[in-house]
């Protein structure tokens, strides 16, 4: 579909690899610039009673801090900058992707898988630096010995599929949502061009698009939230293994 196509803006080839500056790169630059501008500008005139922009910045900060505190405990807060960056990047690219004629960065599996790979690498590195080789106890739950023959492979498989499920969830949600919007927009165009009573009926899918757009706004936030909280949960396992914090 046209809206998911990469279009090179500045063609660039290095050592036979295509590293062109595409519309996706442009949107990623815009997303990062928007986040980097939003936080300092919102916090530039600090007041005890916050203005609207200031409270937006404060709410996003406290939201992520509470999420880490409840899901990964006190020592998870060391990872606040990492999780805040991931949350804001996914949130802004989901929302900016909903703007007509823009491009959804997170609808590309390459982007979401890179994010998921960074998350899982962090989890593994954290686990091994904190517990050493004892991190492998993560795969051995408390259970009778006979059951362990069954449970250990399951735990290993579930750990190995995490980067896939983490990336595919975000990518497929964005892809499905935008495809659905396009299909309903196609209904409007087809009905509107049919003439007579059918043209008047084209208002019905039009209202549906508005409703789906509201749903997509919810999904855009929800997926950023789910991505961040799953990161917290995985980090919690790396920090505390099976014990509760």
């Amino acid at each position, binding site marked *: 579909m046209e809206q998911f196509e990469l279009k090179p803006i500045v063609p660039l080839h290095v050592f036979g690899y295509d590293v062109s500056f595409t519309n996706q790169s442009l949107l990623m630059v815009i997303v990062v610039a928007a986040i980097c501008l939003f936080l300092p500008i919102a916090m530039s005139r600090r007041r005890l009673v916050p203005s609207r922009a200031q409270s937006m910045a404060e709410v996003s900060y406290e939201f992520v801090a509470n*999420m880490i505190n409840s*899901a990964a405990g006190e020592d998870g807060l060391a990872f606040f900058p990492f999780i805040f960056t991931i949350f804001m990047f996914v949130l802004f690219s989901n929302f900016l992707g909903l703007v007509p004629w823009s491009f959804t960065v997170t609808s590309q599996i390459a982007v979401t898988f890179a994010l998921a790979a960074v998350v899982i690498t962090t989890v593994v590195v954290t686990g091994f630096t904190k517990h050493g080789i004892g991190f492998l106890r993560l795969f051995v739950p408390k259970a009778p010995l006979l059951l362990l023959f069954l449970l250990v492979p399951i735990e290993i498989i579930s750990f190995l599929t995490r980067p896939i499920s983490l990336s595919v969830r975000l990518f497929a949600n964005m892809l499905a949502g935008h495809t659905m919007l396009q299909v309903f927009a196609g209904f409007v165009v087809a009905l509107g061009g049919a003439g007579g009573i059918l043209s008047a009926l084209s208002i019905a899918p039009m209202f549906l698009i508005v409703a789906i757009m509201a749903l997509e706004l919810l999904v855009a936030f*929800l997926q950023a939230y789910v991505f961040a909280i799953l990161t917290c949960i995985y980090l919690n396992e790396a920090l505390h293994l099976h014990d509760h914090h």
Partner: protein
Amino acid sequence: MELAAAKMIGAGLACIALVGAGIGIGNVFGSYLSGALRNPGAAATQTTNLLLGFALCEATGLFGLVIALIILFT
């Protein structure tokens, strides 16, 4: 020609994954509502688990979509 037709049928069959996702999402929200009506005081504390369960459920349905796309475009 037959290969193209078989691909279309396969992609359609992959959408059966949505049955499970529908049942799962309905179960998540239904169970949350029945629990929340019995004990409204605890309802607010469980919204994180609710959204998490919803997202995990929805993802399984979307894996079907991914398989359909793989069948269609490879």
